[in-house]
């Protein structure tokens, strides 16, 4: 242990002593054996929160978006903040599963599956908001370019239309990538399940996976192709989301730094969310052997680096508002730092810039509890950052006569917390119904890292 703390990067990605069989056994048992009581408690809480979302959305559709605290000038607030935040969270999953796969980072193997699931659920939560925030949500399909009888098309100059394409593409690719990755494991589950219904369900989803050499060969090819396809999305989606702001002429939004700064922020918050989920999960299901200190260390490093890019973004914004000599930009910065929403700015600075500096210390990077606390704070900080960008900029723009403040209503909170509930409820279901760590890839990893164990297993008859 003390050795690991000294240099976790050299520690193994799987604890020694595992064979194909024990890996498969350990992971599949979470799905196929009984449900722990803790799962029920956690799921019930999240499910109730998800039901709160249902109530909030139902009332929203009955009464209209006026139930939120939005107004003119602050016509966007929580909904768009939540949208950007959720989309950002999704990015870590794609980064881990696609880019790290292409870069042959072996440590990604044990976290990619639920990081991808997280992506999928985060995108689902995010995709709710562009629809919910519409004044007339029943016409959301007008953003889709379909051949309407009236010959009207969406306005292709609008970033919201680009958003529609970006998010849809992202959601579909993430789903395909996740599903293709699941296929060998679904086959395993089909073979190991005792319950007839489970056998049939996993069997159907496994699409006839038999584990033949052809299957493996095609599987690998398609998986890598999809990874290559998903890779540009890591950059493109949040770039386009940032265009929602950068294209506008509002001080605080109109900025060319936004695309890289948003992508870095997305990875930053995404890794924070992966850690927020991994650390309790690892403890609860005793997966320390698969998600080792090396993983935590690596993720903390990614967080530190992306956090520094975000901090650079903040600095650039402040510098340019002075350097541009533009009164409106200057005022915006001054207002952001000292205005009525200044407290939020200082919170985001603390959470996103100051506290993550602790990650320079190896002792912190390898301490699961500290990492968990830091990652939760980063999640809070990133949400506040989006709120400051959306609400803070809108509340005081060009004409002082139109300045106005925003305050969230109970429905704003219910909708936001409800999506947290939905997200975690989906995570709970995923953990219970599908292997949260890729068994197939773990077996490969065992083979690569512990050839003697594999040989041993091969020598032993099943």
């Amino acid at each position, binding site marked *: 242990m003390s050795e690991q703390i000294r240099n976790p990067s050299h520690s193994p990605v799987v604890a020694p002593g595992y064979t194909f069989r024990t890996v498969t056994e350990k992971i599949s048992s979470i799905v196929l054996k009984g449900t722990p009581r803790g799962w029920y408690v956690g799921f019930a809480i999240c499910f109730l929160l998800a039901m709160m979302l249902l109530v909030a959305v139902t009332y929203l559709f009955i*009464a*209209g*978006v*006026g139930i939120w*605290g*939005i*107004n*003119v*000038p*602050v*016509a*966007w607030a929580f909904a768009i903040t939540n949208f950007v935040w959720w989309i950002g969270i999704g990015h870590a999953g794609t980064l881990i599963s696609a880019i790290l796969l292409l870069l042959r980072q072996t440590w990604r193997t044990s976290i990619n599956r639920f990081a991808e699931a997280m992506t999928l659920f985060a995108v689902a939560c995010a995709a709710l908001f562009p629809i919910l*925030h*519409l*004044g*007339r*949500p029943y*016409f*959301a399909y*007008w*953003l889709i370019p379909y051949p309407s009888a009236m010959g*009207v*098309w*969406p*306005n292709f*100059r*609008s*970033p*919201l*239309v680009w958003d*529609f394409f970006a998010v849809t593409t992202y959601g579909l690719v993430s789903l395909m990538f996740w599903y293709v990755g699941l296929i060998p494991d679904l086959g395993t589950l089909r073979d190991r399940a005792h319950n007839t219904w489970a056998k049939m369900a996993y069997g159907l989803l496994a699409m006839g996976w038999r584990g033949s050499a052809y299957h493996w060969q095609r599987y690998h090819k398609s998986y890598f192709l999809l990874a290559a396809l998903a890779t540009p999305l890591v950059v493109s989606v949040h770039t386009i989301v940032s265009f*929602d702001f950068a*294209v*506008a*002429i*509002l001080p605080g939004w109109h900025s060319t730094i936004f695309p890289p700064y948003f992508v870095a922020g997305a990875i930053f918050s995404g890794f924070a969310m992966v850690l927020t989920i991994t650390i309790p999960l690892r403890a609860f299901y005793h997966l320390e052997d698969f998600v080792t200190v090396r993983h935590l260390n690596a993720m903390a490093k990614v967080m530190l680096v992306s956090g520094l890019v975000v901090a650079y973004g903040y600095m650039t914004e402040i510098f340019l508002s002075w350097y541009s000599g533009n*009164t409106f930009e200057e*005022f915006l910065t001054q207002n952001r730092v000292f205005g*009525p929403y200044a407290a939020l700015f200082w919170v985001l600075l603390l959470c996103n810039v100051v506290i993550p500096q602790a990650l320079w210390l190896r002792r912190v990077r390898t301490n699961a509890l500290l990492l968990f606390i830091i990652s939760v704070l980063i999640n809070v900080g990133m949400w506040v950052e989006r709120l400051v960008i959306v609400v803070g900029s*809108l*509340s005081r*723009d*060009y*004409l*002082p*006569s*139109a*300045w*106005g*403040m*925003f*305050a969230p209503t109970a429905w704003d909170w219910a909708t936001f917390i409800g999506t947290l509930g939905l997200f975690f409820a989906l995570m709970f279901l995923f953990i219970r119904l599908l292997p949260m760590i890729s068994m197939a890839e773990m077996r490969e990893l065992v083979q690569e890292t512990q050839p003697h164990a594999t040989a041993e297993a091969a020598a032993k008859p099943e």
Partner: protein
Amino acid sequence: MNDFDVFQNVRAKVNAAESAEPSSEELRARFVQDSGAREWNEILASENVAGLEKFLRRDFPRQATLYDSTIHRRAFLKLLGAGLALAGLAACAPPQGEKILPYVEQPERILPGLPLYYTTAMTLGGFATGLLVRSDMGRPTKIEGNPNHPASLGATDIFGQAAILTLYDPDRSQTVLQNGNASTWDAFRAALTNALNAARTSGGAGLYILTPAVSSPTFAAQMDSVYAQFPDAQWHQYEPFNQDNARTGSQLAFREIVQTRYDLARADVILSLDSDFLNAGGGRLRYARDFAARRNVAAGQSDMSRLYAISSTPTLTSTQADNHIALRASLVAGFARAVAAALGVSGVTAPEFENIPANFIPALARDLQAHRGTSLVVVGDEQPPYVHALAHALNDTLGNVGTTVTYSDSVHVNPTDEFASLRALVDDMNAGRVGTLLILGGNPVFDAPVDFDFADALKRVPFSAHLALYADETSRACAWHLPQAHFLETWSDARAFDGTATIMQPLIAPLYNGVSTHEMLSLLTDAAPRASDAIVKAFWQTQAGSDFETRWREALSTGVVPNTTFAARPVSLNTAWIANAPAELPIESYEVIFRPDPTLYDGQFANNAWLQELPKPLSKITWDNIVAVSPATAQRLGFSTTISATGGEHGQVETTEVQVTYKGRTLRAPIWILPGHPNDMVTLYAGYGRTHAGNVGTGAGYNAYALRTANAPWMGAGLSLDDTFQRVSVATTQFHDNMEGRDLVRHATLQEFLQNPNFAQRPEPDISLYPPQNRESPQWGMTINLNSCIGCNACVLACQAENNISTVGKSEVLRAREMHWLRIDRYVEGEGENAQVLHEPVLCMHCEYAPCEVVCPVAATTHSPDGLNEMTYNRCVGTRYCSNNCPYKVRRFNFFQYADWETESLKSMRNPDVTVRSRGVMEKCTYCVQRIRRAKINAEIENRPVRDGEIVTACQAVCPTQAIVFGNVSDPQSRVSQLKADSLNYALLAELNTRPRTTYLAMVRNPNPEI
């Protein structure tokens, strides 16, 4: 058996049955034995079961009543079925008393879809403003000013614009009420006849009539015939904000009551002694027009009039001042004396002033002296008679009489001291001398001085009736309430401030069976009561010589009766009073002045949601009245206003609730800090605090009349303010009044302008990545002359009326969601008492490179070929991105279903050319596209281009100072193009390269360089 035997038999059986009533046990036993299946009827008919029926009747009384009725089961079911069927038919029934028939012959001039315009007039305080009312298929929908009318010249004020909503107000009184219970006109007529018969025997003694100020010649003639029949009847008049001071001042100066009239077009130097002549009084629209015309430097004029304003409360007039002094109300008399002394008026002593720059009064006196005959001294109605008299003396000394000041007969019928008139009435009521009291309009229970206790006095009146638009506070205190006809529902007449008479013609039959004051008086005098049209026409028939019909039609079509303007009359000034100056009020706690609310006036408009939601011009507050103090006074008392933590700045502002104590009476009200307000002085705005105004107005604000006493109805000292340590939320549409150093309202003094005519110009970008805009004629554009704009809000309401804009209520204004397409921004420069307030109307700029158009994902906001930024409501999905990207924040969003789709009467009110919006869509100024299209259609029918000035937007039409000009900017000869070429022309936020089509002409002020 003969008939008699049969009868005897039956009788015997019945008696037997009645006497022998079996017990329930007996009956049960019998039925158990008698187990055969038999009908109930059979059992009842059977003689065996004697007394059964009686038993059943006793135990089942409800069923027995049905049994006894003539309707039996089958008949009942038949009727039930028929009733259901007929209930369906009833839904198709026509409104009571109307016959709906299609036109067999098309009436002349009525074409479906094309509006007609009729002249009429509206009165406020007895002064008429001529109107031109649009009628769509018999429904009045929009009020414009009558260009022929001297008090309008085409303009209207906020009250004129909002009158259409009062007409269709569903809360208006719809039935006669007797002691609060629904009654009928017949019942009232019968009761009135009895009361009149009693009065007739005593020569009319005991018959009292109370009206507001009246200028109707027909009404005057009717009162003559009332006096003829009831010689001892009494007529009292009362308006809470009346001309008492001016009348008494006129009596002091001239020993008679005359009407003072100003000619601001000829005035070079104006001294306003606490007068709000641009926004109050009968000539306000005309004065504003004439005043603005003399300050129009944009049109190449370099000579401007100069306005010195002394004000005890900041008003629209004081914000237009070139030199402004905030002065406590009681000090204005002293100021006037100082000016009079400086001008050499004999017998006047000048007091000392500490807070006024030493050279102010001498410089002012020199300026006035230098403009003998073209100067003008104007006094506010709140100022005591002495100041009015002194102003007459000053105008006389300066030789202004006959040039800028003229005197004429009083416009009002029987002008009196109205507080004295009401006092006499209340004394008679308390003494039991009033037998019959007819209150024809007004609301004295609400707005009479509190020490009169008018409601209590009413209890001593045996027969009291109140004719009013609403069953209000006075109606509830009277025995009878009678629904009044709105001025758009009945015939009448009225005089303008210069005496010009207008026949007021109805646009629609009374919606709720209301009657007019003329018809009420007719009930007193005519054996067969006549209708308003007959009464008014009969009166004017007596006035006209020959050829009445032609003259009548001419008067109706032009909106003015020719040759009725009062001629100027000579007056002789006496100066006996001049030494009797009123004492300054001591600074013991605070001095108070009562003023009518800027949007509700004296409270009569309290149930008008448009006026409730209209931001007060200076405080920008809606749905409330406030106690106004200066920043220094508030600071000394520790009162403050803050942006609410739950949203605000635009929307919710929290302020201190104070307890106001004055002459032993108290009330609680929110305090508000008004820059430009004098220190040690408090302004109370009356008109709020209504208890029975209707669903809209009841309960809003505090009632300032609760502190107003008859001996000092205008101003007084000794008011104290105490903190209640409560914070209250006030709904305001603009709290931040600092321009933050931004170039939003560009302004300069006349001297600076003459030195640098291009002071408003800044280097602006002239390149763009976008392709150049289509420049094919026509291209619409607008200029707003900030030098002319007085911030009167008329354009805001005109836009609301024209474009079916919803009101949202206080709770939504608190959340910054008001819907006005046009707002008037108010900025403050300078601090404290000397702060200068700047007004800037802001509406959609119709940018050539509109930021909103780029970002809309569904192309719901697009550019039209003639340069309009169009909003397609049907396509809007409500992302609100356009509003976020609008630097002017002129877009308004329907966060809820704000437009009332339910109330029937409001449906008739709406402009049929404009969509009523639904929830979830964005809306904004369209440049009144419906008016543009109508003009284009007319032009195309006549095969010609649209003429310059043919299209008049609603805001432009209503503007009293003609600050707004609209037209074709691609025609260099058009007025708007010429104004845009002026050196004063600038675009708001031009540095953003949005290329707004709405531009501003910078403000130029003409302060005295010696001060």
